[in-house]
């Protein structure tokens, strides 16, 4: 082996020696593993990768990655990541946080990050609960959730993360699940490739405080009917036999589920996924069980200016002929006393 071809790094070389401090069986484990695999797949540069997180079980993530990491404060990871990208736009920055961190206390920073389209990835682990603080309902909890702070059932309409993101101007939204490792890795890779903020919702099981909240979607027996994995340019099919698909009702502007072979329906009737179509993405992102399959994979991906990149260019241009402070101080109305 010579200097030019270093040994490729293995997944475990992206891991730290810190014991993973989450509950046995927690979905967070799988996501950590997926990330380490993904990093190895793309041979990510450890020293140029930074994980920035808020506070929560999900936000412990940086401690497990052998890269740079910053475990910040609750809800503010997006702001710190933004500053970091301003200081050094070349870094590969991943923001990691729970549904509470991202959507509750951190909601404002999330929408402004998306609007500015800062070039980084945002992974939101959605377990529909505040895990770290022992199980209160979160902004994504379904109505009626019983929790220590809602012993009579919560009465709030849940926040829909991807719909919010798209409304805030996100240019990349995707969804994955903790136990669908292959697809999760694919989504992580796509997120990293995209220039601008890539927002990814990861359905994650909190085995202690909200166990099984996604089992109607994620469990082996249900997943084929309850999920639809999207691929750009391909017809949107799902179901145990892969024969169900999505079609648009043009009058009512709604999607409907159709089955190939029934009522003379064939492949041409099935909508083709177009990651650049924002309205389609809005509809797909909004699909929810039990009426519709939940959209997985890359739902929307549109290229657009990234704040940090544009700013970096502007700064480079502006400093091509750097100005001198002493000169500035000496200019304008200046007089001498002698």
């Amino acid at each position, binding site marked *: 082996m010579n200097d030019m071809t270093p040994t490729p790094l293995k997944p475990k070389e992206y891991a730290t020696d810190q014991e993973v401090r989450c509950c046995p069986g927690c979905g967070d484990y799988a996501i950590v593993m997926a990330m380490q695999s993904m990093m190895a797949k793309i041979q990510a540069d450890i020293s140029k990768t930074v994980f920035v997180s808020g506070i929560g079980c999900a936000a412990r993530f940086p401690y497990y990655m052998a890269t740079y990491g*910053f*475990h910040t404060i609750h809800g503010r990871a997006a702001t710190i990541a933004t500053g970091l990208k301003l*200081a*050094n736009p070349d*870094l590969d920055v991943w923001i990691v946080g729970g549904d509470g961190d991202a959507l509750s206390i951190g909601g404002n*920073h999330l929408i402004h990050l998306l609007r500015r389209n800062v070039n980084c990835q945002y992974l939101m682990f959605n377990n529909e609960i505040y895990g770290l603080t022992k199980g209160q309902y979160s902004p994504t909890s379904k109505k009626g959730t019983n929790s220590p702070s809602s012993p009579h059932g919560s009465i709030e309409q849940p926040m829909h993360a991807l719909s919010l993101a798209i409304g805030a101007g996100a240019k990349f939204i995707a969804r994955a699940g903790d136990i669908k490792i292959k697809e999760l890795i694919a989504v992580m890779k796509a997120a990293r490739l995209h220039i601008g903020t890539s927002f990814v919702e990861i359905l994650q099981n909190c085995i202690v405080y909200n166990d099984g909240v996604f089992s109607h979607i994620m469990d082996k027996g249900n997943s084929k009917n309850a999920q639809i994995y999207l691929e750009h340019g391909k017809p949107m099919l799902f179901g145990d036999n892969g024969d169900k698909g999505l079609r648009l009702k043009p009058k009512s502007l709604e999607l409907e589920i159709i089955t190939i072979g029934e009522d003379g329906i064939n492949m041409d009737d099935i909508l083709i996924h177009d990651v650049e179509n924002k309205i389609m993405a809005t509809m797909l992102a909004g699909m929810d069980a039990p009426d519709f399959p939940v959209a997985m994979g890359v739902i929307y991906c549109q290229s657009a200016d990234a704040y940090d990149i544009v700013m970096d260019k502007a700064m480079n241009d502006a400093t091509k002929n750097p100005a001198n402070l002493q000169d500035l101080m000496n200019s304008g109305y200046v007089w001498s006393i002698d």
Partner: protein
Amino acid sequence: MSVAAIGKNNHPREKLENAVVRFAGDSGDGMQLAGSQFTLATALAGNDLATFPDFPAEIRAPIGTTFGVSAFQINFGGRNIRTIGDDLDMLVAMNPAALITNIADLRIGGTVIIDEGAFNPRNLRKAGYENNPLEDESLSKYRILKLDISKLTLDAASPFEVSKKEGLRTKNMWALGLVMWMFGRDKTAVLGWITTKFAKNKPVADANIAALNAGNVYGETAELAADFSIYSVPADKNIPSGKYRNITGMEAMAWGLVAGCKMVGLDMVLCSYPITPATQLLHHLSKMRAFGVETFQAEDEIAAIGAAIGVSYGGKMGITSSSGPGIALKTEAIGLAISTELPLVIVNAQRGGPSTGMPTKTEQSDLYHAVYGRNGDSPIPVIAAATASDCFDVAIEAVRLATKYMTPVILLTDGYLVNASEPWKIPNLDDYPDIKKQQLTTTIDNFLPFARDKKTLARPWAIPGTKGLEHRIGCIEKSDRAGNISYYPDNLQKRTNFRRDKILGIANDIPKQTINLGKDKAKLAIVGWGSTFGPIHRAVTNLLDKNYDVSHIHLRHIWPLASNLGDLLQGFDNILIPEMNNGQLLTLLRAELFVDAKGLNKVMGKPFKIAEIETAALEILNQNIERV
């Protein structure tokens, strides 16, 4: 530069040691321009000076209302000018609202120049006058010079192709011309400024010049000097030689931050959210990209400090700025910077509080918040600017401390200093001492993110992107040296002590406290911080002139205090601490140094008058009670 000592018609000019003039009018009357041009001419005449603009809180309030009045005050003279002056010698009032809101500040016997043309019933009513003050006795304490400036201005503008509205807008130049005549000021610089400013609109330039000239010769031709004094204010002979320019406090701070960052070899990013009066830093720095200055307007103050922390984590100098309510919002994140030991400069332009309070008024009531205002034991260095030009130097000091000690630093200024201006002896940047920061770490051997420099106790600054130094930091308590999460009791005690000692250790790295004026043992020391420097300094000068046994001590470093301060204060029988708050430095000094100081407190949104401080000092100085 020569100053005519005799008016053209040979009326003698009354010599004044200093003079205080205020231009006041409607927001749309151009008083700030008149004031700043008068400032320029005065600076060029060799006077020392201090100025302060008093904007209305409203953006552009309806014409003629009291809350729409805009004013500009200048104090200039032949000896070190420290304040904008207690009482006005001359007031220019362009309408009834300007008169009613400002006349109380004119000294008895002072001159008020009034635009009679604006004293119509509508304006009088808007100002709240029941009777026209020009027609009753209410102004009899003053010398009144009422002229229909509006009409005179229109006459002057009539030869030029300007609309009536444009013509009337030159009223401010007319008034300026008259005031310049009264003080024997040279017009050349102002004419030059007009020509440049309106280069693209010759008729308007001509109309402005005509108005300035008309006001200027009016005095002569109307033989005003027969009834009104005209003045000469001699140049200050003691001003140290050098190159000077006029500078506002916030301009100086912006430049100081840029200078400081250059000195430590870092690019800077200011992350801020607009708020009065701190916004001006954002405005100044946004124009300075060519100096390597990046600015980021965040979605709120929390995002602003978050981004600034991110910047510093990334290896540039993160700076954030705000005022009262915005600083309050940063409270939690300041703790993060303390806990992760990252450099950060937090500029607080203090304003009238509590809550939103009085955004456009000044106060120095955020000292408690700066020193004590965080959860946990969270020490942080706090320094404060004394004068407009001092803002430059404290800004450099803030950058020095932040980078050398890996700590956030709070830099206090206030609403007065932000807008106040004064002549500034332009420093040579090469004259500053070397303040190279703690170098970014690149050594891989034995790297530990929370190891400590033996002398400063600072941790290394290893930035993402550096090969081999990958590590994790966070807001949860960390083990000493390695920086892994740690809940061990002993570790917590150790880290708490380190945090305290690191900041306290700065006391050994700052100048010993000196006495600014007076002797080191006296009956009274007046101790101040921040923008009270000016009035205290002048009051003490005056008292020393009268042979009182008094000294002035001004603190730049609020936390930690200079190490000799306690001993120094032992030399005084009495200590008086004037503050534009309810006694915050007072609390700090009593607690830390155990000195039984007395407070002189004023919370009125504006600076102390010299006389207020003198009076309070005299009360103590004239007591016969000796120290026990």
